[in-house]
């Protein structure tokens, strides 16, 4: 190694052993590079500084505090709120609310739509050979035709709510089956992180 540029490149390359002898030989005759070598050694030396007194105690206090907060959060997840608190937060509740609003706002249109849908279903069922279903649908709607618009809307609202409640119940049951099968609890993290 004959010059300072090559020496600095050797330093930049992480002081490879292959050229170490030549580099040290150069540094022994060059004050500048000898000084750079001292700098490099100083940089590579451990840079520990004595931590303040009580450091470990403070860390352990914070660790316990974090554990305490985690335990509280875990308890909240494991002890869910009563149904009358959690039910309004369910998507089914929002859907039921939208459905009820629609019924109140456009009861007659909804009724006409429901009748038309029932007619279509009835025709499809009759075409497919399900005459029993056709008769049942006809029988179900026949008494309602005689009722007033308000009664019809109420009937639809009750039927809609019952359908949504049944859907929610089915969803909750499926959720429980999946949770039992995979060990995954909604809102409690992944199975790997859950302790």
């Amino acid at each position: 190694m004959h010059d300072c540029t090559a020496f600095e490149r050797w330093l930049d390359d992480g002081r490879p052993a292959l050229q170490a002898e030549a580099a040290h030989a150069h540094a022994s005759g060059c004050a500048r590079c000898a000084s750079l070598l001292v700098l490099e050694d100083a940089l590579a030396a451990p840079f520990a500084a004595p931590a303040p007194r009580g450091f470990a105690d403070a860390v352990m206090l914070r660790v316990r505090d974090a554990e305490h907060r985690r335990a509280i959060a875990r308890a909240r997840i494991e002890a869910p709120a009563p149904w009358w608190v959690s039910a309004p937060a369910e998507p089914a509740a929002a859907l039921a609310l939208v459905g009820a609003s629609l019924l109140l706002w456009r009861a007659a249109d909804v009724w006409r739509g429901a009748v038309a849908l029932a007619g279509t279903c009835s025709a499809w069922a009759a075409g497919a050979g399900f005459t029993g279903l056709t008769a049942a649908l006809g029988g179900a709607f026949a008494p309602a035709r005689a009722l007033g618009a308000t009664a019809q809307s109420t009937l639809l609202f009750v039927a809609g709510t019952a359908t949504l409640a049944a859907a929610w119940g089915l969803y909750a049951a499926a959720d429980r089956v999946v949770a039992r099968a995979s060990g995954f609890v909604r809102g409690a993290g992944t199975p790997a992180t859950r302790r």
Partner: protein
Amino acid sequence: MPEPAAHPAAATPPDSTARQEAAARELVERARHRDEEAFRMLVELHRDRAYGLALRITRSRADAEDVAQEAFVRAWEALPGFRGESTFGTWLHRIVARRALDRVDSLRRRQRRELDLDDAAAEPAPAPAARDPLLAARLERLVGDLSAPQRAVVSLFYGQDQPVEAIAATLGLPENTVKTHLARARAALREAWLAGDGETT
């Protein structure tokens, strides 16, 4: 009377470094299983280097203490997921470096908002414990003049012997940015070091 069986350790004196590493691994394993006593011992083993790294990056004793403590708490929380791909020390120092840089960033933002003086940068960091305290103090002075990312890169590159790719991953910076920080830091340190040679000799 038969001679009592010699303790295996006495029969084959183990290399002290290997023994220390094994003991450290055991501590980490116990701490992974939520053994607070083992974790406390890890804290005591690593506190000076963690604090030193935080101090080098933040240049403030109070912030360095807080950052190092936060890093230990984070390490405790993340220990169950620690796979042992690097040593506990290297892993911890990555957390410290990341947190220290975040702290410097947030301090700078706050100072900019308050239009205040750069207190954190103005506070001189104490010289870390080294073989030559004068040399260490001089080095720390120079390192203190670097920017926070440059300090972090230099500390991880030299002090932790981490490659550029690992530093980039730790600090969330592109590799080329890390290389640039490293090159500029080296150039600045060398220039200042050589310029200071006249003063110290």
